Every structure is written in C-alpha cells, then in structure tokens.
C-alpha cells in the first residue's frame, strides 16, 4: 500500500514526505539537523526533553519535532529566533539540575548533553543551580554498570531500552516532580534486581548517568607490573567496531590494526577469543548431537530440548531470573571468553612456562555483561579467577588514545600463536545467527561427512536482523554412526535482544513451536550491537557492522571451526575429545536460579 504524500516547507524549502513522518525526519531529508536528547532511532517516541522544538507557522506553541507528524501545507522553522532562544533555555534548564563536572565525567567528550551545551555556548548560570546532595547518588553495586543519578536528565531512553528492547524493565521512572528519578524496584542496588547487565541502556544514555564500570587503570597497572605476564583476548565483534571510536567509518574492519595497537600497548601476548569460539563450536556442536541422541534414541527423560546457546552472559542472567525452570535447556558450555580464561591459565600457561598465578588475562569485549561474568564464582576452574579484567571496545579505544597511538597509521599485525588461530565460523559469533551458522557448519559435516548445503557455506536463512528467525535443515545421507538422524528435519530458531528472547521462550513454553536448537544473543543484532560497543548505535550502524563481520568470514582461509589447526591440537595434546572429562572440568559450567522480581 503506497502511503499518501504530504507537502510542507521547512525553512522555506519544499519537501514531500510520507504521511506519518515526523517533522524531525522530514528535516533530516533536507539535511537540517535538529538536536535531540530523548529521541532515539531504536526506541518509541517520548517527547519529554523538548530540545527538538521547532516553530510551526500559525501555532501558538513551539512543537517537539520528534513527536509531531507533518501535515499538508505546514511551514516549519528549525532555527528562528524563538526556536533558538527556547532551545538554549531548555538546555540551560537541564543543566541547572545537572552535576556538570565534565572534566571528571567518564562521558567527557562523548556526551550528547555536553555537545549541546557546547554548541549553544551555555555560559553563566541563568537559572538557579538545583543540584542537591540527595541527587548525588552513585550506584556502583554492579560489576558492569555505574549509575550516577546526578548526571541524569530523565530522558527515559534507558527505561524504554530496558522495556522495549530487552523486556526486562529493571529501570522505571519513580516519584514525581522534582523528586522524579530513574530507579529500580524499591530503589535497590542494581546488582540486587533483575538487571541482566546487558548494558543496552548505557549505549543509549545521552549523558554520563549510565556508564560501564571501567577497569582501564587496573589493566595499565597489570601491564606495568614486571612480575605479571599479561595476555589479552579480543572478541569477534570488537574488530569490526573499534575503528568507530578512533575516527574510522562505521563498518570498516580493523582486525590487523587492533592487534598492532594491543602489542604497542604492552600486552605480552595478543590472542583471540575467536580461537575459543571455535572450541565452543566443537563442544556445543557435540553436546547438541549427544542431546539429540539421548532425547530421540535413548528417550532419556532428563535430556531436554531445545538446547539453547550460552555464550551471552546477559542472556544467561536473564534466563536465571525469568525462566529459571528452563535452565536445563541451556548448553553447559561456557562462553568463549571464559573458555579462553580457563584454557589460558592451564594448557597455555604450561606450554609457555608461566605460572598461572603470574598470568593476567584481559578481555576486550563488545559487552558489559562479561564484566559480571568473569567475576562469577563458577568461573575459577583454573584455580584462579580465569579472566581477570574485561574492557569494552570503548575502553580499549580510550587506552589507544591515552597511549598516543595514531590508529590510522598502524600497520596490520597478526595474532600471536597459540590461541590466536581462528576460523570464519568464529568471527560470525559476533552477529545474530552466527553461532547457529557456525554450529551447523560443523555439526552437519560431522553427521553427514559433507559441507552444509549452502552456497559458499553461507547459511542465509539464519542471517539478518529480524527479531526472531527460524529455519529447518534437512539432514540426509548421514554416516552410519548417525543413522538416527537420517531424514530428520532439524528445527532451529534465533533471537536477539531480550524482548525477542522472551517472546521466543513464551512460544517454546506454550509448546507452540518445537525446536531442537535455539540461539539467543542478549543484545540487538548480537554482540556487534553489544552494550560495550562504540556509541551511537542504530539499525543502520548495526547493519553495517554485520556486513563487516560476514565479509571478514568470507576472507578467512578457514571457514569451519573443526578445521582450526590449533583447536585440533588442543584436543590432541590436552583435552582429548569434545565433552571429555577435562573439557567438562574447564569448559563447561552450570547455572543457578535467581530472584524473579
């Protein structure tokens, strides 16, 4: 159905846009930028900050352009005297309630409010300073997130993020009037409520009110400590986004430059989480096949299907809170980050003759939930905390800047070996559907001896940004030992963003859909849209990052996890085989039910 076109003028320039378009979007078509704070391309319209006001000819009041649809014959002015004055006053009012100590703020230089204040050259206090001691509350209870109410402008992007994208609603608007604030159930600390630590709210907070717990100083200290051997691992999705924080366009791959930079920062070894992503596929693929056999052939009542992926710690915590009756569905595989830590401080430490207690494992992650994950008591199978510090992609960019490295001019370098080799299947872990695709590339081949029947190994049906995807793979002409899978239709489903995950879980629980294997990533788009990735984020940005991931995959000489030579070697030398006793000790874990409310 084609929509009706509406003609209007913005700053005297005519434009025709579809009915229902907001003034803000229409102005964007004409390249007029209107500042916004509460508006966000991923979220519903709130219209509460008012910085986007414009003048509409004939209207008595200024209109919030993000919340006002165009109408026929409308004449809009985005920068009239009235608009400019009002906008400046609005920013001044926001700042009168704001603890604007920018130089000490983690968001300094990346803050939308600061940018507006700077654009409008906000100088003296025009309004009374209303920052009160009661508003100076910082919640540092979570290992992932810092919430600083004195920096909050109550735009409610976080509230909408947590509700609309994540289906969690750990944050809500509480109280009213000058007491209004963003808070949790009964104002409890974040770590005591149902927050999953996904960090999606951080990605959308325009100010320093929600930021990651940063561990930059701790990591520098480790690097400078001569008694420590510091190894760093980088998650798949970091290499396609790090550039964004260092002046490189969205969607450009910076894998080699990132490795170079990490070496220059002084890490003793630069290794790859992609290696353990491949290892994850070996373990998880085998676990899936074993579960299928137990459930379909042995009719074992304790084996539950569908099996669900477990790489995303935000998703895991979500499941522990919301669907604690379904914890047995989760794969017992640790996430690649944690497999890496466990293997680094055992197998790898032995190989390079370093004592585990002298080794520090640092992760560069697109994620803030990983900060929480590495501190889980279950994640100490090496006898030490397996992963010591987790930095976000953003924190790494900050370290690179601090070190005075000109990222543009860096040469490309290669990961160190061992624990540095990986496949294309590992890289795509960073995109929604990627773990599924990687697992299918391996499992299908184990069972049939042939490659997955998709052109160039690209399993298109599991790719893309649809909230919930499903696909069916027919398994034919299997090897004799897998005869029970002959002719079986393998049903798989994929969800990204926890609101979608919730929908999928409800469907599974109601028995409306029968799946064998489900992939869930806590963040919209998968890790590429993770809570630790460069800000801003939007559907277009995530699409470009996904394209970068899939082209990285196509350029890899090895495309399948089970062909990674270092993975084959670790099985030969150390682990034995997938799901071996040793694998269970180091690479697998269990989950615990948490409070539902």
């Amino acid at each position, binding site marked *: 159905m084609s929509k009706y076109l509406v003609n209007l003028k913005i700053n005297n320039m005519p434009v025709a846009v579809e009915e229902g378009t907001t003034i803000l979007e229409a102005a964007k078509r004409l390249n007029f930028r209107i500042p916004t704070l509460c508006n966000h391309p991923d979220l519903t319209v709130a219209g509460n900050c008012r910085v986007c006001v414009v003048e509409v000819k004939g209207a008595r009041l200024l209109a919030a352009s993000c919340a006002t649809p165009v109408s026929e014959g409308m004449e809009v002015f985005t920068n009239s005297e009235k608009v400019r004055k009002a906008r400046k006053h609005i920013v001044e009012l926001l700042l009168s309630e704001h603890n604007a100590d920018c130089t000490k703020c983690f968001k300094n230089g990346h803050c939308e409010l600061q940018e507006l204040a700077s654009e409008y050259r906000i100088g003296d206090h025009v309004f009374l300073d209303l920052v009160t001691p009661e508003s100076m509350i910082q919640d540092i209870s979570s290992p992932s997130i810092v919430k600083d109410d004195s920096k909050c402008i109550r735009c409610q992007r976080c509230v909408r993020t947590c*509700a609309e994208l994540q289906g*969690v*609603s*750990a*944050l*809500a*608007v*509480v*109280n*009213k009037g000058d007491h209004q604030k963003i*808070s*949790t*159930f*009964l104002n409890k600390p974040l770590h005591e*409520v*149902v927050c999953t630590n996904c960090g999606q709210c951080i990605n959308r907070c325009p100010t320093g009110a929600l930021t990651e717990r940063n561990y930059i100083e701790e990591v520098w200290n480790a690097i400078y400590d001569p008694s420590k051997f510091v190894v760093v691992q980088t998650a798949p999705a970091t290499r396609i986004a790090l550039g964004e924080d260092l002046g490189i366009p969205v969607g450009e791959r910076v894998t080699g430059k990132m490795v170079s930079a990490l070496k220059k920062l002084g890490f003793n070894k630069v290794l790859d989480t992609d290696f353990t992503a491949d290892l994850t596929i070996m373990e998880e693929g085998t676990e899936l096949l074993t579960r299928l056999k137990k459930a379909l052939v042995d009719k074992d009542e304790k084996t539950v299907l569908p099996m669900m992926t477990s790489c995303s710690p935000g998703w895991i915590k979500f499941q522990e809170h919301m669907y604690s009756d379904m914890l047995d569905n989760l794969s017992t595989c640790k996430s690649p980050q944690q497999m890496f830590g466990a293997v680094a401080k055992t197998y790898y430490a032995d190989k390079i003759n370093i004592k585990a207690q002298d080794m520090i494992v640092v992760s560069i992650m697109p994620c803030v939930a990983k900060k929480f994950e590495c501190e889980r008591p279950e994640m100490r199978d090496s006898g030490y905390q397996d992963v010591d510090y987790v930095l976000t992609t953003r924190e790494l960019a900050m370290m690179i800047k601090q070190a005075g490295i000109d990222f543009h001019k860096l040469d490309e370098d290669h990961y160190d070996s061992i624990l540095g080799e990986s496949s294309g299947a590992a890289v795509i872990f960073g995109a929604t559907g990627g773990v599924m695709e990687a697992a299918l590339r391996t499992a299908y081949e184990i069972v049939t001896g042939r490659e997955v029947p998709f052109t160039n190994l690209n399993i298109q049906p599991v790719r893309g940004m649809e909230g919930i995807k499903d696909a069916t793979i027919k398994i034919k002409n299997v090897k004799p030992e897998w005869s029970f899978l002959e002719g079986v239709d393998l049903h798989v489903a994929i969800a990204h963003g926890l609101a979608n995950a919730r929908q999928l879980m409800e469907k599974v629980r109601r028995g409306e859909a029968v799946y064998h294997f489900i992939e869930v990533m806590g963040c919209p788009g998968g890790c590429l849209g993770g809570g630790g990735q460069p800000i801003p984020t939007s559907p277009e940005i995530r699409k470009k990052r996904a394209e970068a991931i899939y082209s990285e995959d196509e350029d890899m000489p090895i495309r399948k996890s089970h062909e990674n030579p270092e993975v084959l070697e670790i099985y030969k030398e150390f682990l034995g085989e997938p799901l071996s006793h040793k694998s269970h000790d180091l690479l697998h874990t269990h989950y615990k039910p948490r409070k*539902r*409310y």
Partner: protein
Amino acid sequence: MSTTEALVKELVEKNGRTRNSLMPVLQGIVQQEHFLSEEALICVAKELDLSAADVYGTASFYTFLDTVPRGKNIIRVCKTITCHMKGKDEVIKAISNALKIKVGETTHDNKFTLLSANCLGWCHKGPVMLINDEVFPELTPQKALEIVEEYAKK
C-alpha cells in the same frame, strides 16, 4: 498463601489482569493493609505480569499509595498556602503533641500516622485534614484533637 497474596489475588480477580487494573489493585491493598509492602508489590507484579520496578514506579508517583508501613489511621493535614495562612501549623502542633509523633511518624501502637498533604481542594474551609477517607474542614487545634480522640476510641 499469605494474607497479602490472597488479597492481591482477590483484587486481581475482581479488577482484571490488564495493566489498567494496576491502580484499583494498588488502592485495594492500601485500603486493607494501609501501605504497599515489598511482598504486596511483588504479588501485583506477578499477577499482572509486570516488572516489579514498573509497579513500584507507579506506586511511587501517588502520595496516597504509600510504600512504607503506616498506622491504622492516616491523618493528613493540608500544608498548602491557604491552609497554611489559616493556621495549619497550630493544628499539626496540637496533634503532634497529643500523639507524641512528628509529621511522617507512626504511633507505637500503630494506630496513627501523621502526614502533611498538598491542597485537598477545601481551601475555602481551611485548615483541613483528612483521616483515612474522611475530610474535616474548619479546624481549630481543639477541634482537631477531639476528632483524633474519636478515632482513638474506634
């Protein structure tokens, strides 16, 4: 099942399970239990399939939906300008002295909580106070004490 749980279930039965019934359910609980306990808020969240933060957010918006324990009788003296000019301070002082509690406190026997309130819409007959749902206009300290004594006997 605890009494709170039973109460919430009963209120939800009566008012329905949609978000629209959140207010009547919360009001119903306050009527019975005088405040919204953590347990009550969680029960409501569970029954209406809302997040606990959401339920708390709504409750915290309304002055009359308390989330801290309150006495059996809640006295709210209007503190807004007209009642202020007509002597609400003396009224509060008298009640406060008689019950030995300050504004915001509850008596030891849990019989009374003394609070202040914003304009109750009775400005022309100020000062006024509200005890539970009942309005008492044109107060003097003496009159206020007599009314409170009546409630003490109930």
